[in-house]
């Protein structure tokens, strides 16, 4: 009876277990992380790898235990609750006592805290793992990992200008992340936000250099609206194919990305928006009053960032407070049941795809009106695909998308200077990003495994119940 305890989902101590698990695995992993970091530190100072590894393993192990023990002794007892019926310790998020089956009726005060802790820790650990493995790659190829990360950090967050540039890089990612997350939440694997971004950008540029007589605010609004509609319609095409003809959206959206990129390139290279005499393939420059104000000296950081922030709020409200949000989540979780409940699944898919594309279009408009002032062929550095990574990392939560986009922005903007100050190629940033996707995927599949195990247990319990 005594000593019965239900482990919390100790994600933050056991990053590789994907849920409740043996705390010692967590200690071991932290020790390993500590060893790697210390070994690298000692090596750069004393040029001795063996000594570094030895000191590092020791320091990492002790550090890991020191780091964990307060968590273990102070925080976790606080977060546990005692079952009134049998006295067993259980997780605060449980609704049923796993030992005696007693149903809890009072809300646990720590619910939100546990959830917040879990989510934050998950993101931090995923990034950490990516940076550690990325550092290993650097070390193996004979570069100085610590110095590279120092440059990355300084030019990502070090100065006011660096921070402004990070926000600038984050802006389109917020839009595309939101668009992707919205589709993902509805169970639609929309990879086509990149295409919508191009269509939106072209529409914004066209408005910007055509309706030059309009006053600034009207022109900017019109450009954003046009971009949103253009992006949305571009999203409707695969949406319609999926809703009506059940065509797999992954294939269509990937292919339509190419169509969008090539179509917009044609428009400025030799099509109607072609401007003779320009070296690059770009559209005419947009009107002066259509340009978004820049907010920090010597940086392109502009007010489209605040449009993006507003969109985060809009999406939060949309998901939690509207019928469409409810129905899109319902469709994403159990589309068959959604249909039975009277949700018009086809219409929901169309609406979601329009909104998803709309945010892609807004991303394009933000770039055109705030950064480039024209439409340049192939200007996007994979904003749509970064948005996909961010949506995965954020598990489709709008607030998570914001945080993820800020992190990625810093990584991107810091990474772009890496080549100037070190002999490390900019591809490092891509490697780190790929590693993040990799670890997110591991996390997701571990989650999947845990879920499957749970499902098997439930099935067994149900079978017992049945007989």
């Amino acid at each position, binding site marked *: 009876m005594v000593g019965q305890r239900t482990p919390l989902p100790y994600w933050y101590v056991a990053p590789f277990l994907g849920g409740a698990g043996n705390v010692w695995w967590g200690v071991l992993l932290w020790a390993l992380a500590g060893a790697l970091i210390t070994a690298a530190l000692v090596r750069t100072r004393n040029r001795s790898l063996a000594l570094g590894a030895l000191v590092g393993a020791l320091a990492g192990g002790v550090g890991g235990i020191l780091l964990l023990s307060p968590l273990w002794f102070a925080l976790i007892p606080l977060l546990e609750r005692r079952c009134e019926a049998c006295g067993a310790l259980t997780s605060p998020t449980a609704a049923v006592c796993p*030992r005696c089956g007693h149903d809890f009726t009072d809300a646990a005060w720590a619910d939100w805290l546990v959830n917040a802790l879990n989510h934050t820790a998950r993101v931090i650990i995923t990034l950490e793992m990516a940076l550690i493995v990325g550092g290993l790659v650097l070390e193996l190829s004979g570069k100085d990992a610590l110095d590279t990360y120092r440059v990355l950090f300084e030019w990502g967050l070090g100065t006011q200008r660096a921070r402004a540039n990070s926000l600038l890089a984050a802006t389109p990612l917020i839009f595309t992340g939101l668009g992707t997350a919205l589709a993902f939440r509805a169970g639609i694997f929309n990879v086509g936000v990149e295409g919508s971004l191009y269509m939106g950008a072209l529409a914004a540029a066209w408005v910007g250099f055509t309706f030059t007589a309009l006053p600034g605010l009207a022109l900017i609004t019109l450009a954003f609206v046009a971009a949103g509609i253009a992006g949305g319609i571009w999203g409707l095409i695969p949406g319609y194919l999926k809703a009506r003809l059940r065509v797999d959206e992954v294939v269509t959206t990937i292919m339509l990305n190419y169509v969008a990129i090539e179509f917009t390139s044609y428009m400025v290279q030799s099509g109607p928006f072609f401007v003779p005499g320009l070296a690059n393939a770009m559209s005419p420059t947009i009107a002066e009053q259509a340009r978004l104000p820049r907010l920090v000296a010597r940086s392109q950081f502009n007010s489209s960032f605040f449009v993006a922030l507003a969109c985060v709020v809009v999406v939060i409200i949309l998901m939690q407070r509207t019928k469409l949000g409810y129905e899109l989540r319902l469709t994403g979780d159990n589309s068959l049941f959604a249909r039975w409940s009277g949700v018009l699944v086809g219409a929901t898919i169309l609406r979601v795809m329009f909104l998803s594309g709309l945010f892609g279009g807004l991303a394009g408009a933000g770039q055109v009106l705030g950064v480039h002032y024209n439409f340049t062929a192939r200007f996007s550095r994979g904003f749509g695909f970064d948005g996909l990574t961010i949506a995965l990392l954020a598990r489709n939560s709008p607030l998570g998308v914001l945080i993820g986009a800020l992190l990625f922005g810093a990584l991107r903007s810091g990474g772009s200077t890496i080549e100037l100050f070190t002999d490390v190629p900019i591809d490092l940033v891509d490697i780190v990003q790929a590693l993040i996707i990799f670890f997110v995927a591991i996390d997701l599949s571990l989650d999947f495994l845990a879920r499957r195990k749970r499902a098997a247990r439930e099935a067994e319990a149900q079978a017992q119940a049945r007989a």
Partner: protein
Amino acid sequence: MTESSTLLPTGQRRIDHLEMRGIVKRFPGVLAADHVDFDVKAGEVHALLGENGAGKSTLMKILYGLYAPNEGEIYINGKKVEIHSPADAIANGIGMVHQHFMLVPTLTVAENVALGLKSSREPMLDLDVVSERIVTLAERYGLQVDPSAPVWQLAVGERQRVEIIKALYRGAALLILDEPTAVLTPQEVDDLFGTLRQMLDEGHGIIFISHKLHEVLAISNRITVLRDGRRVGTIPAEGATKPQLARMMVGREVILQYEKVDMPHGEALLRLEGVHAHSDRGTEALRGVTLEVRAGEILGLAGVSGNGQRELAEAIFGLRPITAGKVFLDGREITGKSPALLNKLGMSYIPEERMVDAVVKDFTVAENLMLQDHVNPPYAVGKIFLNPRAIAQHCAEMIRSFNIRTPSQETPIKSLSGGNIQKLVLARELAREPRVLIAAQPTRGVDIGATEYIHQRLLEQRAKGTATLLISEDLDEILALSDRIAVIYEGEIVGVVDRADADVETLGLMMAGAKRQGEQVAEAV
């Protein structure tokens, strides 16, 4: 009997006395077995009785080597044995027939029995030798089975016989039967009991896991009741009574006898005329079902599982295409109408697979409670927005009036217990004040307390004049609640009887396909 070297007809050494002492098994957060003592002697049936999660299966999985106990010892004929795997268990003469049969459907009976055993002429198979021994065993123990028949052709009862033969073939002196009667008709149960008695005479020991009281009383010599992983007591079956056992199982009296208000015969609110529908595999699952359910009546639909019950419920509720026939709701034809429309017309459905078909697992309690009605006031304001305050208020009301035990409205539904999830589904479906209610296995996998509550609610609904179609495989439930009982067999209604005229015997015969003649059939049409 006293000689420990006595051999069984199978040539295996007899297990005169098997003893499990102080068995403890811990799972994370659960003490599944708490110092349990258990023993079984040759020539006796020792029944293990208990509710879900009481620890019956855990204890037997430990004995069969599927789980390692944290503490405790096992003795066979006074000698301590270590059982680390099913192979160890088999070597010690312990056999187990699992609830879900472990057979390969495409192989023949002989091949299934020979599977995993050494052949007498490796590397070739010796199926003839195996078949011969199967026939000998079958004759000895009254287990009729054709060794050359592919398993997929066999009925459930026959498959169970194959499982028993498999265990005997491997030299089982002691047989563990995990809920053996769950899938059988009453007649098949009798056959099984005949075999078991034969085995007892030959000197086998049998452990019989069940939670069906009357069967346990019919076959056992001793009964051990488990509750919450602890042994409540072991009593001789002779002299034991059902109420006594039920009290031991749940720790209080269970009332499966309900007070029912007399309801006047109302008009037929739900009427089915020759409904045909296909199963998921495309075979004919419903073959002309004709039924009517009147206002203020509960019509129980009894039958062994897989005879078209699920398909019938889905066909009525518009989830499965009806290939022929018609369905009427209060005189209006609703054949093939969508579930959403049927909801509006006053039909509610409590599906069998509640985690898949009735709730959205990742949604919160409140979000699940407003399902299907979320487009209507008070949940929605205008065309776009939801009204969080009204939602919270209404859900709080439902949670209170249906006694749903949940930490909060924001708790994800998947963390609630099965009984509470079912209460939530009931709350949502009944809040709509349905005129016709289809309840499929409403208390499957639900603890006794919640079961009682759900039954009371269904009877309340009956008193309000709702026409209820209660589909259940639990005869006790059907008998306790129904006004009339229809029996379905292979997609056809075999007959409809009044509750007053119904008894387990005749229902059992009908569930096995025996058509009833006379007025009942006439009434069914």
